[in-house]
């Protein structure tokens, strides 16, 4: 009983938060698995064993290594999958940070797709417009990256400005700026000469940044690409590059900004209670605009990192669809409970789900959209993570109040379902 002076690990608030996220993940995966099973068992095209394989892949697709000669699924360490997971995690971590920072200021940044698109456009225009050899490659890379960030910051500041000064709901303003951005970007590329005519097997794509401008012509291999820093040796066959390291550094930077600086304190104060913050002498309008600008820059830098990698192509007639990376920032931030360090792990988890979706498409009769179903269930559950947390803590309090000493009456740890290494990693991360 006296042990309660020092709360045990399972009694801490952080543990309840982590548990609620893990419950969301497990339930989300289970729902995805059940949908796959039900569809498989009721559909004529999919056999029972196919349905079971789909179910297995949902939970452990990252460890799948394809099929053997007999047609059975094989499992093991798949360096290409893990490397691609980290590569795809890079933009999602950045958009997740974007949404998380805005959330801390009490703003729901659903405008990440628009900011991401503006970042894409600015980055590609700078990277492809500077003639090859005019400047050192690393300088072009940095200029393109900064141009992307600046474009995103400006685009993010627009909803912030109308929220701060005209009191327009930022959700609506963000959605409108998303569609405006989609049209602006299509328009810009439509009237540019960056459309890929060298590799014109596929139409509608912009040159990769590995193409350089030589005497008015685009030549492959003369452009720029994010350095790999040997990571491609670690994960052979994957697209991984140093972008993931930059994303992790950005997450640590945002953690320091939000938790250790005056600016971070002011932003959080505005999020907690805008009017109280103003009463305390904090310039609330400036902070709202600033928060959205930072969020925009983060989302756009995700785009910059993705398209500067050198092996990604941008499909420019985007006016009818918004990039999924932008929307995926929302579940990442919710799952990480807006903790910048948690965003890294949540982003890697989401990227793992994407890989799982691809494995499902490649290996079974299912398709990758089941990933989005799982993600949306996770978002839905995280909407009432507060309720789950309240439930968890109230149970503990009630048990603690009981006079009889009980031997650790805590809810069972969810490890039994956490078969993936990533989930375990995430757990380790949030306990920092």
């Amino acid at each position, binding site marked *: 009983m006296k042990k309660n002076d020092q709360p045990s690990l399972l009694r801490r608030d952080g543990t309840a938060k982590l548990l609620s996220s893990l419950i969301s993940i497990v339930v989300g995966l289970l729902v995805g698995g059940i949908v796959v099973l039900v569809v498989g068992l009721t559909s004529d095209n999919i056999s029972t064993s196919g349905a079971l394989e789909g179910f297995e892949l949902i939970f452990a697709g990252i460890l799948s290594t394809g099929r053997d000669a007999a047609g059975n699924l094989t499992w093991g360490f798949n360096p290409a999958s893990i490397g691609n997971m980290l590569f795809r995690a890079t933009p999602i971590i950045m958009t997740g940070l974007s949404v998380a920072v805005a959330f801390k200021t009490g703003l729901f940044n659903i405008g990440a797709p628009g900011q991401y698109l503006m970042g894409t456009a600015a980055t590609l225009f700078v990277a492809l417009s500077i003639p090859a050899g005019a400047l050192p490659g690393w300088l072009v890379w940095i200029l393109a990256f900064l141009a992307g960030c600046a474009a995103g910051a400006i685009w993010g500041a627009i909803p912030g400005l109308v929220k701060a000064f005209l009191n327009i709901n930022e959700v609506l303003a963000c959605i409108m700026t998303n569609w405006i951005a989609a049209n602006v970007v299509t328009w810009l590329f439509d009237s540019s000469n960056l459309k890929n005519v060298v590799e014109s097997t596929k139409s509608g794509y912009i040159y990769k940044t590995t193409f350089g401008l030589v005497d008015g012509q685009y030549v492959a291999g003369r452009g720029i690409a994010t350095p790999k820093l040997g990571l491609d040796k670690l994960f052979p066959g994957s697209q991984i590059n140093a972008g993931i390291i930059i994303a992790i550094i950005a997450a640590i930077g945002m953690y320091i900004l939000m938790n250790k600086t005056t600016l971070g304190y002011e932003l959080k104060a505005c999020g907690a209670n805008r009017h109280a913050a103003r009463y305390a002498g904090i310039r609330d309008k400036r902070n709202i605009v600033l928060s959205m600008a930072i969020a925009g820059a983060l989302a756009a830098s995700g785009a910059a990192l993705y398209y500067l990698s050198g092996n990604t192509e941008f499909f420019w007639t985007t006016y009818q669809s918004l990039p999924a990376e932008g929307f995926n920032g929302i579940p990442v931030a919710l799952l990480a409970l807006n903790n910048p360090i948690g965003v890294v792990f949540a982003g890697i988890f989401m990227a793992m789900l994407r890989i799982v979706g691809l494995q499902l498409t490649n290996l079974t009769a299912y398709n990758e959209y089941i990933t989005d179903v799982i993600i949306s269930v996770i978002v839905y559950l995280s909407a009432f993570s507060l*309720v789950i947390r309240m439930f968890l803590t109230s149970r503990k309090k009630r048990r603690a109040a009981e006079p009889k000493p009980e031997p650790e009456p805590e809810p069972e740890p969810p490890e039994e379902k956490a078969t993936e290494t990533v989930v375990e990693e995430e757990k380790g991360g949030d306990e920092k």
Partner: protein
Amino acid sequence: MTFLIQQTLLYAIPLMIVALAGVFAERSGIINLALEGIMIFGAFIGVLFVRLMSESSAFLAAKAAGDWLSLQGLELLAMLAAAVMGAVFSLLLSFASINLRADQTIGGTALNLMAPALVLFFVRVIANQNTLFSVDAASWFMIKRSTLGIERGTDLGFFGNTFLVQIYLATYICIFLFVILSIVLYKTRFGLRLRACGENPHAADSLGINVSKMRYVGTTISGALAGMGGFVYSLTTANCTANGDVAGFGFLALAVMIFGNWKPLNIAFASILFGLFKCIAAAYTSIDINGDGVFALSTLGISPHFYRMLPYIITLLVLAFTSKSSRAPKAEGIPYDKSKR
């Protein structure tokens, strides 16, 4: 001019009915950000229903016999199916935001993510491609001269040409429902109670109104209207196809609702305005305003991208000018807590 009016109506009517869906939810105190998702889901259900029915023998017989009445009946049934499933889908939002007092914005966003994911997943399983077609359902359902038993090529005058032919029954059903439901919301005891829950739920509760039940009713009506609106949108503007996308119409409807100040008449006006801009964006190359054979808008030489982003820019501008004077329901977005004051 006939073309312009008809095209505008095609876009304005779904916007109007979905904006009214938003009003029902918000007047009861729930922010329904999921309108877009429910529309997507409703469109899928309606198209799937038409697709399944079009394979049945009863339907084939009716079509062969030229029985237009039963075809219109099928259209109504599909609208009903979309409405019912839209209402069921919206229960997810009601449950999260009323019973669990979750954040309504996040709950709505979850549904907005879930609907296209589920729809695309099932469309891929059913049709093995990303779009679900129902052959040429849109042309079966369209009311033509032959439907009304009029000789092909007969001139019905301006009024007849515009409002009697080349139009869908769904459009008029939506207008009818819009009028009826607006009266219900503003002139009946039920409507007053519903609105009370969105303005001051504690006062409503003290007078014996069950706030949770009223909010459930509000969001369920909202879901039904949005689901139906989604199918009407896909039938009239997307040729009766479902591909997990309604081009941001749900969000535009929310903007229409705010612009219309949560009042039906203003919403009707606002949705016609937005429908006009949507129509210009979609068909500016073939709009002949005064009938002299000159397509004025396409001769201006403005990029089509400009017209496409016009509705969204106008929305932003309109919100900028109206948001100061707009009056949202006071208790919207706040979970009802009996013990709070």
